[in-house]
């Protein structure tokens, strides 16, 4: 046998240890799973955050508007009451 034949015999292919393919496939699937789950998770969190921010700001805006309307109503009543008092005082002074 010559050197080239000996090299072919010495360097012939051999299989890796049993279960090699299963280990590679398991690693491939585990490396892919988080990559797919991640964007879905991020989208879900982003949508939930936007909904919470939207509802909260709408609620606060309405509450602020209601409070301001309440203050305006109280102020209007005070002004009306003062005017009524002034009118009543004038009327009493004329009668006297």
């Amino acid at each position, binding site marked *: *046998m010559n050197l080239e034949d000996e090299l072919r015999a*010495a*360097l012939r292919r051999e299989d890796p240890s049993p279960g090699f393919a299963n280990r590679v496939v398991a690693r*491939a699937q585990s490396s892919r799973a988080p990559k797919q789950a991640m964007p879905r998770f991020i989208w879900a969190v982003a949508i939930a955050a936007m909904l919470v921010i939207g509802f909260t700001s709408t609620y606060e805006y309405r509450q602020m508007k209601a409070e301001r309307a309440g203050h305006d109503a109280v102020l209007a009543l005070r002004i009306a009451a003062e005017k009524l008092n002034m009118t009543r005082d004038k009327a009493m002074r004329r009668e006297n």
Partner: protein
Amino acid sequence: MTDDPELFEELVREHQAMVFSMACRYLRNRALAEEIAQDVFLQLYRKLPSLESQDHVVHWLRWVTAHRLIDHSRHEKRRPQSPLDDAPEPVASTSSTDPLLSDMLRDLVAALPENARVVMILRYQEDLDPMDIARALDMPIATVKSHLQRSLALLRDKLSREKGVGL
């Protein structure tokens, strides 16, 4: 091709011996060879959608494995490089398929410089002709032929110098 897990598993089973043996012959370390072979197949899994055919997969696997191995040995600081002159002296034997001679040849090939080692593995493990090796490694064909001639001469010299194994 798609990144269908069943197709991927089929490809791993079909080509595991090629990738693992290239790494094993290059590194002479089965555990490290399996680790590198696994990394090559994981890279294949991500790359699958862009590969067009089985031939393309085989070419891609050879190219990536070869370059991975060369990069690994260039960056490997823990494993001291042993030049061919420092390789263990062969034990005299002339019988064909002698396990000792085979083991000795594997040691001598593993002690060759990186590019020459890959060229020898592709030539004698994968049985590629110099033109295919040049294509697989993006290397000029003259360089491939030169690596083959020089490596064979070195191995012959090493085998015959002191122990008188003439091949």
